[in-house]
C-alpha cells in the first residue's frame, strides 16, 4: 500500500492522558521539534491542580494543545484536529471538543474495565459506536513498548512509562518530524540514568516505526515552514520570557536583580528560573510568605537593587498593603501577577484576567500604580523589560500582568539582540554640598524623586508610610500638603503616557466594530479580526499594553467606531474602565471558563453585534 503525503496549512493536536502519563512533557517535546522545523506555533498546556489525582479519574486528566502552521498564527487553536488519548478518562473529557471527523489515537491497553469505570463509561467507547464518526487509531502502546524493551534490566512499570514516547514517535511519523532533537534531549535529561535514555529512545523509535510498518495509516501530513520574518528564533514560554526580561532590565540598569517571593501556581516558575541565574548575580529570596516576598523586595530597592516580586491573585492580595508603601515611598519595584482563576484559591492552574481591578484599585487610599500587560508568551520579555524601565525612571511600583495561559504557553520567538535594548539609567542621587538634600524633590518632567541609597554619605534621610511633606519628605499631617502629594503621585503615574508609543490599529482607522483587548487575549482577538476582515467586515483591532495610564490617543480612536467590543476573561473589568473614562457605550464579551477565548467566540459575537 502506498502512503501519500498531504500538505496542510495548520494542525491542532491535543495530547491528553492521566497526570502520570507525561502529557506536558510529550507536548513540550513535540513543540520544540515543531519550532525547529520552522512552523509558527502556539501552545496551551492544561493540567489539573492536583499533583496526583487518582489514576485514571476524570479529575486527573492532563492535556497539552499545540497549534502549528505554515502561516502566521496567534492562538493555540479553537478545535483540535487530532486527539491523543492515553486513557478512557482523557477521551471522555476531550472528545466533545475534537473537530467532527477528526483523528483519535488511543492507547488501547488503557481501556480496561477498571479504567472505563473510572472514566464513567458504561461500555467501551472504542466498541460501542461512540467514536465511529472519527478516524480512530487504537494502538496497544503498552504492549508494544513492553516488547521493545524486552530483555532490558528495568521494571515493567518503568517500561510502561515510556508509552508517551511511543505516542510521540508515532506523531512524529504522521507529521514528518525528525526524532533527533528529542533523542538529544533524552540523552541530556536522563544523563545519569542510561537505562532510561535507552528505553525512552526505544519507545520513541518503536512509535515512529509503527507508523511506517503497520499499514493502517494511509496518509502522512506535511506542514511547511511558516513565513516568519528572517532572523534567529527560539521557542519560549511566558514565565521564562518574564524572568529573562527582568534580568535584562537589571543588567541594562547595571543594578543587581533582587527577587523576593513565595511559591504559587502559576507564578512559581519565575522564582525557579531566576534562582538558576545565580551566575548573573541574581539574588532570589524564597520568603516566608508573600508579604515578606514583596517587603524584602522593597527593602532591596531602598538599598539600590532592582526589587521584584511575582505571585498570583491570592498572593497579590496579601501584598496589597506593601504595594501602598512602595507607592508612598516612591521606590522602584516590579510586581508580576501571573493571573489565575479566582476568587480565593479559585482555579490555580487555569487562566483568567480577573485581577485587573485588583491591580488598578486593590489598595487603601489613592494609590495609583502603573499597569502593563503582556500579550503573548514572547512579549512577556518586553513587557517585563518595560516594567523595569518605568519602575526605575519614575521611582514607582509597576504591575506586570500576565496569566496562566501566557505563562505556560509558548511560541516561536524572534530573538532580540541584547545590545539593541535601551540602557536604563538608575540615576542615583549624589551628594551636593551646596544644597540640603531633599528626598521628595522631583524631576521637573517626570516628577520622579531622587533615589538616594544607603551608603551614600551626606544623603542620610528617613522615609516611611506616613504622609510626606513635599520636598523634605518629613512626616506631615498638613491637609493642604496631603492633597498636593496625592495629586503629585497621581500626576507622576499619568506622566508615563509620554513613554507610551502611538496606538496601533490593525485595520481601518474607523469602522463598524473595534475589538479592544488587553493581555493574553491578544492572539484570539487578532485571529478573530483577521477572519472578520477576510470576510469583508469593517472590523479593526486595538490591543492595549499599558492600562494605567491608558494611551493618549485612545479616546480619539474609540470615537471613530460604531461599536467597541471588549472581550475579556473576566466579567467586564477593562470594559468598566473604558466606559468610565471615555463615556463610550462599549459592549463586553466575557468568559471565565479557565481557558483562552476561541477566535470563533469573538467572531460570533461581532457577527451578532453587526449582523
Amino acid at each position, binding site marked *: 500500500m502506498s502512503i501519500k503525503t498531504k500538505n496542510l496549512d495548520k494542525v491542532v493536536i491535543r495530547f491528553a492522558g492521566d497526570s502520570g502519563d507525561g502529557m506536558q512533557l510529550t507536548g513540550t517535546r513535540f513543540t520544540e521539534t515543531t519550532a525547529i522545523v*520552522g512552523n509558527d506555533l502556539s501552545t496551551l498546556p492544561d493540567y489539573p491542580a492536583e499533583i496526583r489525582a487518582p489514576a485514571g479519574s476524570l479529575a486527573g486528566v492532563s492535556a497539552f494543545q499545540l497549534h502549528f502552521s505554515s502561516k502566521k498564527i496567534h492562538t493555540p487553536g479553537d478545535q483540535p484536529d487530532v486527539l491523543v488519548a492515553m486513557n478512557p478518562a482523557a477521551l471522555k473529557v476531550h472528545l466533545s471538543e475534537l473537530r467532527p471527523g477528526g483523528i483519535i489515537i488511543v492507547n488501547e491497553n488503557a481501556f480496561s474495565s477498571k479504567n472505563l469505570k473510572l472514566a464513567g463509561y458504561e461500555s467501551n467507547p472504542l466498541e460501542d459506536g461512540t467514536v465511529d464518526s472519527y478516524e480512530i487509531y487504537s494502538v496497544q502502546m503498552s504492549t508494544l513498548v513492553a516488547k521493545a524493551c524486552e530483555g532490558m534490566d528495568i521494571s515493567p512499570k518503568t517500561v510502561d512509562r515510556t508509552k508517551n514516547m511511543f505516542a510521540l514517535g508515532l506523531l512524529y511519523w504522521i507529521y514528518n518530524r525528525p526524532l533527533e532533537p528529542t533523542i538529544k534531549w533524552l540523552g541530556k535529561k536522563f544523563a545519569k540514568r542510561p537505562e532510561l535514555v535507552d528505553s525512552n529512545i526505544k519507545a520513541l523509535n518503536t512509535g515512529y516505526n509503527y507508523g511506517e510498518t503497520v499499514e493502517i495509516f494511509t496518509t502522512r501530513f506535511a506542514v511547511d*515552514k511558516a513565513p516568519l520574518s528572517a532572523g534567529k528564533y*527560539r521557542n519560549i514560554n511566558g514565565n521564562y520570557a518574564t524572568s529573562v526580561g527582568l534580568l535584562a532590565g537589571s543588567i541594562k540598569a547595571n543594578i543587581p536583580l533582587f527577587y523576593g517571593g513565595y511559591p504559587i501556581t502559576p507564578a512559581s516558575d519565575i522564582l525557579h528560573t531566576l534562582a538558576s541565574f545565580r551566575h548573573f548575580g541574581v539574588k532570589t529570596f524564597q520568603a516566608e510568605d508573600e*508579604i515578606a516576598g514583596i517587603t524584602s523586595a522593597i*527593602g532591596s530597592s531602598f538599598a539600590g537593587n532592582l526589587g521584584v516580586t511575582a505571585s498570583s491573585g491570592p498572593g497579590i492580595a496579601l501584598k496589597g498593603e506593601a504595594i501602598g508603601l512602595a507607592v508612598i515611598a516612591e521606590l522602584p519595584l516590579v510586581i508580576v501577577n501571573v493571573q489565575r482563576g479566582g476568587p480565593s484559591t479559585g482555579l490555580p492552574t487555569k487562566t483568567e484576567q480577573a485581577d485587573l481591578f485588583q491591580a488598578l484599585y486593590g489598595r487603601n487610599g489613592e494609590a495609583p500604580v502603573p499597569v502593563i500587560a503582556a500579550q503573548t508568551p514572547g512579549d512577556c520579555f518586553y513587557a517585563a523589560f518595560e516594567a523595569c524601565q518605568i519602575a526605575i525612571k519614575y521611582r514607582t511600583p509597576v504591575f506586570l500582568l500576565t496569566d496562566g495561559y501566557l505563562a505556560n504557553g509558548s511560541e516561536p520567538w524572534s530573538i532580540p539582540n541584547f545590545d539593541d535594548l535601551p540602557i536604563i539609567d538608575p540615576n542615583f542621587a549624589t551628594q551636593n554640598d551646596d544644597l540640603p538634600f531633599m528626598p521628595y524633590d522631583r524631576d521637573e518632567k517626570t516628577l520622579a524623586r531622587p533615589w538616594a541609597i544607603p551608603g551614600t554619605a551626606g544623603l542620610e534621610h*528617613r522615609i516611611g508610610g506616613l504622609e510626606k511633606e513635599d520636598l523634605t519628605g518629613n*512626616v506631615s499631617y498638613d491637609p493642604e500638603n496631603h492633597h498636593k502629594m496625592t495629586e503629585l503621585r497621581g500626576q507622576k503615574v499619568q506622566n508615563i503616557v509620554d513613554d507610551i508609543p502611538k496606538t496601533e490599529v490593525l485595520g481601518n482607522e474607523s469602522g463598524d466594530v473595534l475589538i479592544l483587548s488587553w493581555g493574553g487575549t491578544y492572539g484570539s482577538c487578532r485571529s478573530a479580526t483577521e477572519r472578520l476582515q477576510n470576510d469583508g467586515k469593517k472590523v479593526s483591532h486595538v490591543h492595549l499594553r499599558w492600562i494605567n495610564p491608558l494611551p493618549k490617543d485612545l479616546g480619539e480612536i474609540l470615537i471613530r467606531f460604531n461599536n467597541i467590543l471588549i472581550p475579556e476573561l473576566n466579567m467586564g473589568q477593562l470594559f468598566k474602565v473604558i466606559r468610565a473614562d471615555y463615556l463610550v457605550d462599549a459592549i463586553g464579551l466575557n468568559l471565565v471558563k479557565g481557558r483562552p477565548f476561541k477566535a470563533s467566540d469573538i467572531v460570533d459575537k461581532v457577527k451578532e453585534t453587526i449582523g
Partner: protein
Amino acid sequence: MAETKVKTPKLDRRDFVSDQAVRWCPGCGDYAILAQTQKVFPDLGVDREKFVFISGIGCSSRFPYYMNAYGFHTIHGRAPAIASGVKLANPDLSVWVITGDGDALSIGGNHTIHLLRRNLDINVMLFNNRIYGLTKGQYSPTSELGKITKSTPLGSLDRPFNPLALVLGSHASFVARAIDRETAHLQSMIQRAHSHKGSSYIEIYQNCNIFNDGAFAPMTDRETKSDTVLRLENKKPLLFGAEMNKGIFIDGHTPKVVELGDKWSIDDLLVHDETDWTIAMMLSNFTYQDDFPNPIGVFYCVDEPVYEVMLNEQIEFAIKNKGNGDIQALIDGADNWVVE
C-alpha cells in the same frame, strides 16, 4: 556589620540626632533607648551613612525618624522582611530593626522567627512595653494573663509570649535583654549586638508610662531591683540580691533560687555560659515566674553561618562553575534556528 574602614572623622552623639522633633509622651522609656543608641553609635566604628534603621508601626517604630542615619518607617510587623531585603541588597550596611511587642510578636511574628532562623546579620531592638502604645492601650502578646485593658475589660485570656524563649526557639544566634532605665548596660548590649555577626535580638523592657506604667517597676525601682534582676555575665556564677547572696542552683534538671550561707556556697551555683543554648532557654523561662529573678544581659551568643554571606558564596560558586552570566546566550537559548 560593615567591614570597611571608617573614613569620616570621629563622630559624636550629636551626629546621630536628626532634625525631627521627638514626639513620644514625656516620660516614655523610648527616650532613654534613643539616647543610649545615639551615645554608643559613634563608637561602633562604622560610617554614619552605612547605618540603616528599619521599623514597623507603633510608638517605638517612630525611632528611625529621630536617628540621623538612613531610615525607613515601614508597615506594621514587616520590618524584619524589609530589613532582610536591605541587607541582602547591600551586605556592607549595618542594619537595625526597631520594633514593638505587638509589631514583632503579633502581626510580625512570622517574619521575626524566619529572620532569626536565617541568621542574617541584622540587629533587632524589641521595645517591649507589654502593651499596644500607639493604638492607645490594648493588651499585647506579651501582656500578662488577665490583663485588663480597653479591649479586655474582663482580663485577657491568652497566655503571653515569652519573647526570648521564642527567639531562642527560632535559633537566634545572639539573644540579650536590657532595660530602658539601665543605661550603661543597655549601651553595652547594643555594642555586643553590633559586634555579633548574625541575627542579634535585644529585648528591651520599656516603660509605657501612659498605658502600662510600672510594668517593669520591680526591676527598676531602687528598693526591689537587686532582688528581681539577675545580671548575666559570661563564665560567672548566677548571683543576685542586694547582698549578692542569692543564686541559681540546678537541682537535677530544675533551676532553684538558693540563698548562700551554711547550706550553699558560690561553687554550687550554675555558671553562665553564653554558648549553652539549654542554659539560655532555661533563663528565658524565668520571665513571668514570680519565684525567679529576671535575667538581663547576654543569654546566648554563638557563631552560626550567616545567610547573606552564604548567598554571596553561592553567587561566586555559580560564577566559578558556569562563568559570568552571558545575557545574550541566555536569550538565545540552547535550541534556536535561523529563518532566512
